[in-house]
Structures are given as C-alpha cells and as structure tokens.
C-alpha cells in the first residue's frame, strides 16, 4: 500500500497524469460541442449577419462617382466651388474622357441616377448629354468647355459641378444626413429644404405610435394575463386558446380581417349605422389613418404582451395578496404595493418585445395605415422597390437597427435572452 502513495502526480488508468487527461477530454468535449454548432453558426453568419453588415456598408458606400469619373474627381478636388467661377478647361477635358469610357461601359446613367438623389435633373442631364458626348473625339473636338456647354447649358452651371465635387468622396455620411432630413452641400452640412423634410416626422411618428401601441397592449393585456394566471387551470387553458388562436393565425389574415372591420362600408361602421349611432352619410373614417394602424397593430401584438406577463404572474403567490389584506390593506393598496411590483418584470418583458416588433412593422401599416399611419419601414420599402435609392434605404435601416439593438440589449439585461418563451 505504501508504494502507491508517492508524491508524483495522480495518474489516470493509461498512465498519463490525471490533470492532463481531464484537460484533454474537456477539450474534446468543447470541440464536439462546437462542431455541432458550427454548421448552423456558419449558415447564419453567412446568410444573415453578413448581408446585414453589407447593408451597413452600403449606407456609407459612395464609390460610384469616383469609379466612373476618376480623372475628373482628381482634378476637381483643387477647384474652389465657392468662388462662383466655372472649373477650367482641364476639368472639362478630363470629364469628357471619363464620360467616353463610362458611356462605352454604359455606366454614365447609373451615375446620373446616383447624383439625381442629390439634385433633381441630374439623371436626364447625364442621359441626354451622354448621347452627344459619345460622338465627340478627344483629340479634335476641343476646347471641351464650350462644346459641353453647347450640348447642355447645365454644364455651364456652377451648381452642377459643385454637386459632383461634394459627392465625389468614396465614403459618405450623405445617406445618414438624408435619413435625418439633412444634406451634404458644398458649404458643409445643412438642413433639407422644408418640402423634403419627412424622415424626422416618420421617425417621430414610428416611435410615438409604437409607444401608444405598447401602452394599449399593457392596458389590455394586464387584466387578461391576470385572469389567466388566477383562474383554475382548466378554464384558464380554455381562455388561453382565445389568446393563442390570434397568435397562430396568419398576419395577413388578421390584417385583412381588420380591413374588413374598419372600412367605411365595413363591419364596425355597418353595425354603428344599424344601431343608429352614426348616420349613414357620415360614416366614421377609421381606416387609412393612425387610428386604423394603432387598432390593428394592438390586436396583432397583444398576444406578445399577454404571454410574457402571464408567465410572470403565474409565479406570484396569491397568498401574498391575502396576507396583505389580512394585515389591513385595502384592495387597492394590496394590489398596488404587493401584487403590481411583482408583476413588473412581465410588463417590462412584454413591453420591450411589443415595442421592438412594432417599430419594424411593415405589412399592417401599409394596408390599414394610408399615408398618415405609415412607419419608417414603409419608407425603407419604398426606397428599395420604387425610388431605388438603396443607400438611403440602408441608412434608414441602420438607424432603425441601432434602436432595436439598444432595446434588445435592455431586454437581455431585464429578462435574459435564454428566458424567451414561446406559446
């Protein structure tokens, strides 16, 4: 017995030190876990995180101008736009040379579209001039200053060159400035003209309406969660179906249902007219405005408020309330001082969830919101599919994403992301 008691390291069965052996098996275990996670992680990184990163990059990317007009941008750098004088012949010559290359590659219209976001008319200027510049010869047709101004007198306008100069940087904050109703000008950052200021209104409206929707959800969800948590299990389960059925029903179904309900010739108006509460010729306008959006979205997001509240309230002992009352508290005091503080985590979790969901909503405002009840996401969709100003769409998306990530972080702090429950 005494010869096994030496001072050397403890050995495993195969003779290696136990510490080393344990470390090795731990490493294997870690590797195995990582190997199981890896395929999915790579998939999500590649097809979700990367696209979002690319979108963020696109919101500052402005290499179009520099790529299409490399020479011009280089020379134009030294030109002082504030002097009020046109750039000299060298710029015009470089511009013609760049354009000839660009027209061959059919890239000049792309540039026109890009600059058109900053100054209307640029798109047609590039398209029209392109056709004529194509026929010019770099060797023989000089001087180009006069020729270009003859082709279109906008080339003799200092503003045109100022726009090209201002937006010739490779990485711009211009889209972000546009996203908050500002713009890049030759003289620095400035506020957009009055008639173009819509983004801040939309941002404010999105936040404000999301807050109203969250508030409505708390107001309507609290009693329901309370009654679900306090009824006997059998009846609570039955009532739970009434909460879960809307939760599981397709979003489009619920949105179309609200369209059916809220229209001027819709169910609510019909009932009110039939009851004589509203005259037939003065039916309520409750769709295509903010009221419509708030009502429909409150209905759609209510289950997301009730479910977390319910799971918190289930854990609150009903005996606490009884104890408070037997100690002499009134109904209100017992509720407000004993029950309500314990239910706050549920309210917090539900509110953040509903708020995050509602500021990014697109479908419902699009259908029941009209023009007065749309959100910032509708503007993003508009810039993606109609105006094709993708840089601006990306910048708007990035701002929205930043807001959501802050809220997500708060949610993680309050609730913990592992505690998200479904159904």
């Amino acid at each position, binding site marked *: 017995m005494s010869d096994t008691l030496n001072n050397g390291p403890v050995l495993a069965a195969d003779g290696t030190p136990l510490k080393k052996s344990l470390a090795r098996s731990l490493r294997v275990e870690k590797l195995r876990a990582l190997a*199981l996670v890896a395929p999915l992680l790579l998939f999500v990184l590649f097809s979700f995180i990367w*696209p979002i990163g690319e979108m963020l990059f696109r919101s500052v990317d402005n290499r179009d101008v520099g790529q299409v007009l490399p020479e011009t941008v280089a020379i134009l750098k030294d030109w002082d736009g504030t002097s009020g004088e046109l750039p000299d012949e060298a710029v015009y010559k470089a511009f013609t040379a760049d354009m000839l290359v660009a027209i061959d590659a059919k890239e000049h219209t792309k540039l026109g579209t890009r600059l058109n976001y900053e100054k209307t008319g640029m798109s047609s200027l590039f398209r029209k001039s392109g056709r004529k510049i194509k026929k010019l010869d770099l060797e023989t047709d000089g001087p180009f200053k006069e020729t270009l101004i003859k082709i279109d007198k906008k080339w003799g306008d200092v503003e045109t060159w100022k726009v090209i100069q201002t937006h010739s940087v490779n990485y711009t904050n211009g889209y972000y400035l546009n996203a908050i109703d500002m713009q890049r000008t030759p003289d620095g950052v400035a506020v957009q003209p009055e008639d173009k200021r819509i983004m801040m209104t939309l941002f404010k409206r999105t936040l404000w309406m999301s807050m109203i929707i969250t508030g409505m959800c708390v107001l309507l969800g609290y009693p329901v969660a309370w009654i679900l948590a306090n009824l006997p299990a059998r009846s609570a389960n039955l009532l739970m179906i009434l909460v879960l059925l809307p939760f599981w029903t397709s979003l489009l179904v619920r949105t179309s249902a609200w369209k059916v309900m809220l229209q001027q010739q819709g169910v609510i108006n019909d009932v009110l007219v039939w009851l004589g509460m509203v005259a037939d010729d003065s039916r309520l306008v409750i769709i295509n405005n903010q009221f419509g959006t708030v009502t429909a979205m409150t209905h759609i997001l209510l289950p997301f408020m009730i479910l977390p509240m319910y799971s918190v309230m289930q854990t609150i002992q009903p005996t606490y309330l009884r104890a408070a009352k037997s100690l002499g508290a009134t109904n209100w005091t017992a509720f407000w001082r004993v029950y309500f503080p314990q239910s706050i985590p549920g309210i917090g979790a539900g509110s953040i969830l509903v708020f995050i969901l509602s500021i990014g909503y697109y479908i419902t405002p699009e259908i029941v919101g009209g023009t007065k009840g749309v959100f910032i996401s509708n503007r993003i969709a508009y810039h993606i599919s109609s105006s094709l100003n993708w840089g601006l769409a990306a910048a708007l998306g990035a701002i929205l994403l930043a807001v959501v990530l802050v809220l*997500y972080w708060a949610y993680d702090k309050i609730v913990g992301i592992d505690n998200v429950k479904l159904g």
Partner: protein
Amino acid sequence: MAALTPIFRKPFWLVALVVGLFGGFIGLFVGTANGSGPLGVLIGAALLIVLAWFYIYVLKDERAGRGITFAGLGIAGFAAAGMPGLVLGAIFGAIGGWMIYWMYEGRYRAYVPPYLTPGQVLWHFAFRVICGAIFVFLITPILVVLPLSFNAQDFFTFTPEMLRFDPEGYSLKHYRDFFSNNEWQRSFKNSLIIAPIATIISVSLGTLAAIGLSQSHVPGRRAIMAILISPMIVPLIISATGMFFFYSQIGNWMESTLGLDKNLVGYIKVVLAHAVLGIPFVIITVTATLVGFDRSLTRAAANMGADPVTTFFRVQMPLILPGVISGGLFAFITSFDEVVVVLFVGSASQKTLPWQMFTGLREQISPTILAVATILVCISIALLTTLEMLRRRSERLRGMSPG
C-alpha cells in the same frame, strides 16, 4: 369547482336593479336602432323587471320561467325583424332569464370567497366583464372573416340576404375561385414548396446546434446564442433589406457561374432566406426541451456500448421530439406566413400565398382573400391543437401533471 359560499335568496330590489341595468343596456341599442334611445332603455329595463317580478312572486317555476323568456323574446324578435331578430331576441331572452334566477337565488355568490364585501363582489364581476370585452376584441376579427367568406356577392360586408340567413346570400364561389384560379393555385403551391424545405433546413441544423449548445462546456455560449437568435430580433424589414442586396448578388453568381436555371435559383434564394428566419424558433424550443433532459441517459447508453449516433437516434431524439416538432411548427408557420422577405428576395414566379394576399389587399380587392383567410385559420387551428397535444405529452414525459 366546488362552491365556496353557502347561498341564499336575495331581496327583490337587488334582482330588479341588476336585470334592469342589463335590460336597459340592451334596450339602448334596440332603441337607437329604432329611433329613440331613452325609450328603448325604459322599455328594456321595465320588461326585465316585470318578468322578474312575475317569475319570483307568481310563477315560482324556474324552468318554465326561463323557457318563456327564451321563446317569448325570440318570437317577439322574429315578429319585429325577421331571422336576425329571432337570433338576437332568443340570445337576449336566454341571458335575461338565466340572469333573473342567477341573481334571485344568489348563485353568483357561490363561487366567490365568503369574506368578500358586496363592493368586492361587484368588482369581481365587473372585472370579468372587462376581460370578456378584451377577449371579444381578440377573437372577433378572426370570427368575422369566416361567415363573410361564404358571401354570394363580391362584397367585403354582410349583405341583407346574409343577415336574413337566406341560402341565396351564401355561396362557395370564392372557394371555387381559389381552387380554380391559376394565380392563387400557383402561389399556394409555391408556399407548399418553400415552407417545408425551409423548415427541414432550419430544424435539422437548429436541432444539432441546440444539442451542441446544451453541452456543459461551450466557449462563447452567450455570443453564439445571440447570433443564432438575432434573425428573430432584427426587424423583418431590415433583414429583408440586407437579404435583398445579398441574394441579388448570390443569385447572379449562381446563374452565371454555376449555370443554374433562373427559376430554381429564385426558389433557392427564398428557401435559404426563410430557413434563417425559422432558426431562432427551433433553437429556443429545442434548448428549452433539453433543459429537462436527463444527461445520465446518454451516458448510460454509451456505457452499454451504443455509439453517439445510435444514442442520439434511439435515446435522445425520442425524448426531445416534442420540442423539435413544436420548433418545426414555429419555423413552418414563420415561413408560410412570411411576406416581407419574399417580397424583396423572390421574383414573380416565387409568389407565395401571403404575397398574393398582400397584393390582393393593396390592389384588386377580391373576396377570395377571405376564403383563403378562412382556410388559413383552419390550418392554424390544426397547428394549435397539435402543439397543445405535444405540450401535454412532453409534460407527461417529464412527470408533470397536465395543467
């Protein structure tokens, strides 16, 4: 539920007060519909109070009393307004008759703790009425769609024929349109192609990853979890914007370099995009199930000579199956119901059912949408039932009583 409080008969004034209020409330609606609100309130209240007096002091037979109210008010309603009147009158009569005896016999008190003051009892019921109203708000929009989908007209509202319960007012033509119209059929087929494939991808990858994440030593567990759940947190419109740029490049690359068919590439793009969106749901449900999984079972299996693959399929998988299936259902419904991403990533030949509904709602409003909506509601009821059954099974397996 057993009665908590012994009950005794209540004085007539209390009965009269409550049923009078109820009658007046209903009378208000009937009255305004017929020209005069206050008169309706008076008549409604008086009607119920007189009935209550008659039943309590003269008739003294509960069953007869309730029958008379039910039938009498139904017939009165029919005489006044036809079929809808019959239904509304009968409902009003049934509730009114029940309420008179519920109050008079003191039955309302039976299931409330005996120590409550009258004010607390009142609040108890008022609170239930408020909750009932919220439940009505939750469920009405869905219920309204169902009858409207059988409308014989191309309207989004109830026609007079429908309100008379005239068979002429109802038809299956919107359902026929859905099953015969090429546009709808193609979009339905697309949904049935895209959603299952996306589900299979997210469930298989997601289950593996959830098992990996539930091991005791995973480096960077929180960060990995945050990344995997992010598709659920990031607003759809932002995901869609990002994917729009990304998949248009990927699509071009697949078409030009790999030489794939344009249509096929479109499906691949949408399926991959939807698979990512479904992953968080699978991860969440499967990790939740794994929390209750007894790890010594896998060790026991390994002890008896099973290799990891056998252990997984024979021991672990059957036990976590409810979680996997419910995660799969979530992923399926996410994809089946998704419209923003497919709107941005897909092209016209990948038009899914929600996309078709969305364009339908925005442009040509056709009641076929309501027929589709009804079908989808039925599908979600089926899904809900499946989930509920799975939940009970999983609780039974874990030794909890079905609650």
